[in-house]
Structures are given as C-alpha cells and as structure tokens.
C-alpha cells in the first residue's frame, strides 16, 4: 500500500526532516508511527498525503510514484486517503452532517446517496444523533469522531491519522484507537502517528519509530522483500 524507498525530505533552509527512510506497509495492515516531536512523523504523513514532496528517493502509494505525480492528479490521489488531524480541521460554519458530507460532495455523489453514506459513517463513530448539531457544540472527543467520520465516509483504502488522540483523555483515546482497529478489520490500511506509547503497546499493532528523521525501528513484516534502514 505504502512503500518508502530511501526517502529523504529536506526543507528549504537545510533542515533534513527525513533521511533515507525505507519501509513497506502492506495493504490491509495497521501500523503506528512513533517518535519524539520533531522526529519526522508529521513530515512522513505529509509526504503520503502529497502535502509535501520527497527531496530524494521513491515513495509509492498503491503503485503510484508520488515523487513524480503531477499537481493536477493530487486531488484524485487524496480521494483514496482518509486523513484525520489532531485539531480536527472541522468547518465550524456548517452542521456535522455537512462536514461529513464534504468528501462525497467533492466526488459528485447524488443527494440520496450522500444522506445514506453520511448517516452510515456517523453511525460507525456513534454520533448518529448529532448530525444536525454544530461542531462547536460538541466535546473534543466527539469533534474528533466527526473528523473520523469525514475521513471514512468516502470509503478510502488508506487512513492516515496524525496524533488523533493528542488532546483526549486515556479512555477516549482508547475508544478512538479501537475505532481505527475496527476499520482495519474490514480491510482498510491504517497508519497512525502517535506518541502515546502505552496505548500503542496495548493495541499490539506493528510500530515504526523515527528518531531525528531516521528510521529507528521497523516492526512491519518484511516478507515483501523491502530493505529497511
């Protein structure tokens, strides 16, 4: 699903956020990405979401080389990814329903279909009764779950989450992680950046850890013949 092949990212000004990172996340796998802040977790996710481009190396997403993809193709690649942010990135000028419907509207779904899918997604995150609510009236955990519903409503094959439990208490954090595990069980590939090591240990999924931009530990299966640093 995701294949990093000696990928480096150097920002203008010379700071190297990632150096020679190689790993392979197979389709349908769920893994955690850990490391201290500044270790390069966010940069790695940004490369997959095409918010940034690698400076060196090859990055393949579902067989597509993201190093050479043209700007006009970026939206279509992103439609196959669900992204969850620490600060939710919800739009506060519209209802929960309209927030979750956004990916479907972008893809041009029909009205009836949108209603069905949005309610299914809200049901999965346990917020079916909040569809008419304004996001600002929801708690932090509920807002995060709206963000998750928006990320899964268009049924992407990959979920990326950047510190999805960053602001939540341990119990809520665990609920959110279990939610991701449930999506993974039906075949979605999941990559979660988190520094909550206790929780990660409890979940028992493979862990990739970064240290100062370099791969420190790769717990992913290596049967696919990937070389890793």
């Amino acid at each position, binding site marked *: 699903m995701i294949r990093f092949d000696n990928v480096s990212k150097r920002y203008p000004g010379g700071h190297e956020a990632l150096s020679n990172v190689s790993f392979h996340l197979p389709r349908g796998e769920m893994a955690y990405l850990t490391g201290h802040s500044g270790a390069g977790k966010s940069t790695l996710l940004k490369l997959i979401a095409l918010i940034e481009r690698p400076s060196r190396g090859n990055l393949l997403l579902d067989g597509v080389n993201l190093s050479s993809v043209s700007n006009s193709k970026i939206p279509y690649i992103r439609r196959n990814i669900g992204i969850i942010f620490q600060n939710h990135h919800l739009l506060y000028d519209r209802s929960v329903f309209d927030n979750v419907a956004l990916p479907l509207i972008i893809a041009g779904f029909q009205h009836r279909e949108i209603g069905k899918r949005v309610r299914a997604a809200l049901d999965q995150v346990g917020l079916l009764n909040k569809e008419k609510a304004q996001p600002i009236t929801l708690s932090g955990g509920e807002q995060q779950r709206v963000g998750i519903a928006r*990320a899964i409503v268009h049924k992407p094959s990959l979920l990326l989450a950047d510190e999805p439990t960053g602001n939540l208490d341990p119990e809520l954090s665990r609920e959110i992680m279990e939610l991701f595990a449930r999506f993974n069980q039906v075949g979605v590939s999941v990559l979660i950046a988190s520094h909550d090591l206790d929780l990660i240990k409890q979940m028992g999924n493979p862990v990739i850890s970064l240290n100062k931009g370099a791969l420190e530990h790769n717990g992913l299966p290596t049967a696919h013949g990937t070389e890793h640093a």
Partner: protein
Amino acid sequence: MPRADGNHLAKGSPVQAWAINHARTLIASLGTLTRQPASSLMTIAVIAIALALPSGLLVLLNNASQISVDLDNNAQISVFLKASTSEKQAKSLVKKLRLYEDIEQVTMINKDKALLEFSKISGFGDAIEALDSNPLPHVITVQPKVDPTRPDRIQHLLKQLNKLKQVELAQLDLQWVKRLFAMIEIAQRGIWVIASLLGVAVLLVVGNTIRLDIQNRREEIEVTKLIGGTDAFIRRPFLYTGLWYGIGGGLCAWLLTTISIGLLDDSVAQLASLYNSSFRLDGLSFTETMSLIGFSCFLGLGGSWIAVGRHLSEIEPS
C-alpha cells in the same frame, strides 16, 4: 464499512457528477450570499450604481438624438431666387428640383402673392403700393430628405442649390442641428469612456470582495484541498458568487435606470407640452436591458476570475 469498491455506482457518470456539482454550487453560492445580506447587498448596490450611471446617460442621449432627428425632419431650405428671375423660369426650376434624389418636397412662393400677403399682414399696405416694383424675389422652399446617419447630405444639397444660376441664396436655418449632432457624438464618446472606467471599477470591486471571501474561507479551502477537492471544485463557488453579484448588480442597475427615467419623464413631458410636443422619454429597450445584464454578469465573473486566479493558488494545506 469503508472500502473503495462500489463508489462508481452511486456517483453516476462523470458528466452527471459534473452537472450535479455545478447545480449544487450555483444554489449554494446564492445561499452563501443570502446568509450575509448586508454585505452582499452593498456589493450589488456598488455594481448597480456604477452601471446605472452610464446606462442612464446613454438612455438620455438616445432620447436627445431622437429629438434632433425629429427637428431634422422639419429642416427646410429657403431658396431665394435672383430678382431678375421670371415666374416661368422659377416654375421650371421647381420642376427640376422635384427630380432631385435628396429632396422630399418643393413649394414655390410667388413674389406677387408674397407681396400681397405681406401687405395684408404687416399693415404697410399703403407704403408698399407706393413702390414702383415688387422688391421681393420668388422663393422656393425645399424639404430635404433626412437620413439621420448622414447629416452631411443636407450640406451637400445646400451647396448644390447655391450653385444654380437662378439662385441668389439657399439657406438652411437649422445649422445648429449639425452642431447638436456633433455634440451628441462627443457626449456619446464621453459616456463610453465613463462606462469603461466604471466597468473597470466594477471588476475591481468584485475582485476585492471575492479576495476577502477567499481569505475568510481559507480554512475551508485548505480542508477541501486535503480531502481531494480539485482546483476547479474550489474555484467554482467563488466564480458563481461573482456571477450572482453580476446578475444582481445588472438587475438593480436596470431598476435604477428605469426608476430615474420614470422620475424624469413627467417633467420632460410637461416641458414638451409647452412646446406643443407629445415627446416622452424612452427607457431601456429589451436588447439594451439584456446587454446591460449580460455586461454586468461578464464583469462579475471576470472580477472573481481575476481574484481566484491570483489568490487561490496561494492557499495550500500545510
């Protein structure tokens, strides 16, 4: 449950999705405008006033040239013949003039009849009887054919008449008609200059409004880009907003122009009645109204296009 399969079934054909997206954005952008009625109306009012000014002036000018055409229809050339010309010569000249292409009507005023009439009206009967001979010449009045697009033809006819050997003097007393034509042309150009400047102003007003709109919706644009919105998708609501501004501005400009003309019309009719005329002001014709609204739409769309082109690419998720 999340899976990438089956999406194509619910989306319909790409053309259908495209059409749905356009229709949805068209309505949604109107909804966005109505949710901030005060600021939307302000923008529309600015556009309306900027467009109503030149279109109102144009309407007045069209009416003015209409008056001048009417006056031109009354233009008469008085042809004074030489004193030595006999009545027979004068009559044959009348026949000749009737064959002229540019002449509508020819009437001859016999000098004896003219004298008789003059002595009756003026009350100088006795004094005139004392004269040895009739001091008046034969006069031919010529009604030229009027082509409002070719005011120079009357001048040309005048020259021709003055060259005839029996003619002492051919005179067009409506010299000022020609001057009016010239003034109208200057005014017309002036109005087009004003209209162009105000058109640019409308472009800038719409552009600036859309620019602010883009800044206010920065977060929405970033999120939309992150979840796979194409540039066209993100651009669309702003372009439609510009189009709505154009439509609203155009309609209000038409309304303003029509109301202003209506307010003037009564006073103009009153003035005209003092001149025994039933002249009324003409408002904007259907074609003119459509051009006004079309031009306004063009400016609204153009202004938003400029703003979107300049400012949307600056916003990228980070």
